[in-house]
């Protein structure tokens, strides 16, 4: 179980970094969503893999042993919500930039734009 998961985490990170480094805002948005998913899979792997398939409802303290750790899925849920919201925001800003400058290439945006040139 560890090897395929580890490989897919590595692949996701590689794809995310590649996309983030492209001079294209849309690819950056996609890269960010890949990155957050890579992180989520990493978090699952860090929680360890279940030894038993029981749901973590505990009635008897003896039963706790061997269950999957419920905390990493909790953390992932929170992280998914956050990355979704922030990703949507980033996409909106990317669109606003496109509307202002008619380009999705961040390198084509004016550099060092300050009050002197703007006003």
């Amino acid at each position, binding site marked *: 179980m560890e090897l395929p998961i580890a490989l897919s985490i590595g692949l996701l990170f590689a794809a995310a970094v590649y996309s983030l480094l492209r001079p294209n805002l849309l690819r950056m948005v996609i890269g960010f969503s890949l990155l957050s998913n890579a992180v989520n899979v990493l978090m699952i792997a860090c*929680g360890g893999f279940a030894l038993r398939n029981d749901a973590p409802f505990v009635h008897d*303290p003896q039963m706790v042993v061997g269950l999957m750790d419920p905390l990493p899925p909790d953390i992932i849920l929170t992280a998914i919500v956050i*990355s979704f919201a922030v990703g949507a*925001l*980033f996409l909106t*800003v990317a669109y606003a930039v496109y509307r202002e400058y008619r380009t999705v290439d961040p390198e084509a945006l004016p550099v060092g734009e300050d009050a002197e040139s703007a006003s």
Partner: protein
Amino acid sequence: VNSLITVLLVPFLTATALALLNGHPRIERAVNVGSCLGLTAYVFWLLGYVDAHGIQSSAIAGYPPPFGIALVADRLSCLMLCLSMSVGTVALLASLRTLTATQERYFFHPLFQFLLLGVNWSFITGDLFNLFVAYEVMLVGSYGCMMIGASRRQVHQSLMYIAINLVGGALFVVGIALIYALVGTLNFADLAQRTAALTGARAALVTATSMILLVVFALKAGTFPVFFWLPDSYPVVPAGVNGYFAGLLTKVGIYSLLRVFVMTFRQEGHELAATVLLVVAGLTMLLGVLGAVCQWEIRRILAWHSVSQIGYMVLGIGLCTDAELAPAGVAAAIVFVVHHSVVKSSLFLLGDAAELATGSSALKRMGGAAALAPGTALLFLIAALSLAGMPPFSGFLGKLLLIRVALQGERWVLVTAAVVTSFITLMSMLKVWSYAYWGPPCRATAAEPSTGIAAPAAVLVLATIVLGVWAQPLLRYVDDAAAELTQPTTYVDAVFAERAQAPPLSAALTRAAR
């Protein structure tokens, strides 16, 4: 006390109410200012209470730590909360002067409260994952405040600010995941306990993993290799709110460094982080100030100085390489945090006031603000001298403490860097003074009255004088705060005090986890 959640609930509920009140600017302003003043009073009371009765902790929903979410108020948290709320109130009052109707209609008031919520949350949380969530809340609030009104320049610069913080947030979760896998907990108190017992390969793994978190916090604080986002993004923040950005947002990074790297990670070889920070500190100080001297726009100059001054605080943390100097170094860093929040915030606000008076933010076109707005000019001079480290203001105190500890630690290169940076800071502040304030006035009368911004900023300038002249209470308090951080036993005890009354489920989980 069990009321720690107030510092989160008040901004949250206020933000919700303000969102519903959108379209009634006068009521919105009254509610926003009222809520800020009330919470400021509460956090100052909390500071006194914690100072008298020791560290307070409260477990949300009754699940005791380390399983539940803990809110912990120790001396450092309380001090940061007081800074956040008082600088926040001042910045809000100043921004009421410059807000446009459009900005108010596009939810300025709720966004500002969410910004406060995120910052307060990161100061009071007791675990690493909540620190991440607090960062994100703060960042979303800051994106909103930065882009509000959505001018061309704002959109362009905030794009890069958002992009860099997205990557920072993802890295933060990577760090959290690996720390959880290695140590099995995210609660600061529990981490401090467990990492203290680590040695050998396991300790080395934790140290390596903690470097990921170091990068995240350094990014947030704006230190040497990762400061490039700061000088570009701060100048586009609307006048008024930029006082809060400059005063508090980078301090959240410094606070996290103090909390996580001074208090929490105590495994064998944890000094590596401090050693890295020492190098980072020197480079941040020098490069920041060199960046400042070649700028010609008042806000960009101040933003570059922010980078440079962050170096001093990081230097204080870096001095923890030597266990004997650690309390003094941390205390000096905390004093510097207080000084810099107050002074940099007032400088940004007074820079805004000078912009209003002269109608420009480009130094070469300003000129004569001293004649147009004499009060603003006097306040700016005091704040600028304090930033450069002249007595009797708080900047002198901060630098004196830091350089004294660095001399004790025989860090000659860093002492030289700190002193040289001080001189260049003074030079750069004199440049601002002579171009923007002295000389023939660039216009016959002030373009716009600036008292609305200068009056709130005067409170902060007064604070820098008082902290410099009557420093003893602050120094005593900060020494205690530094002792709590460097010897976290009282912190750990306070957090786990509630475990005694644990409900049965958690007690079972506690047994099973052992």
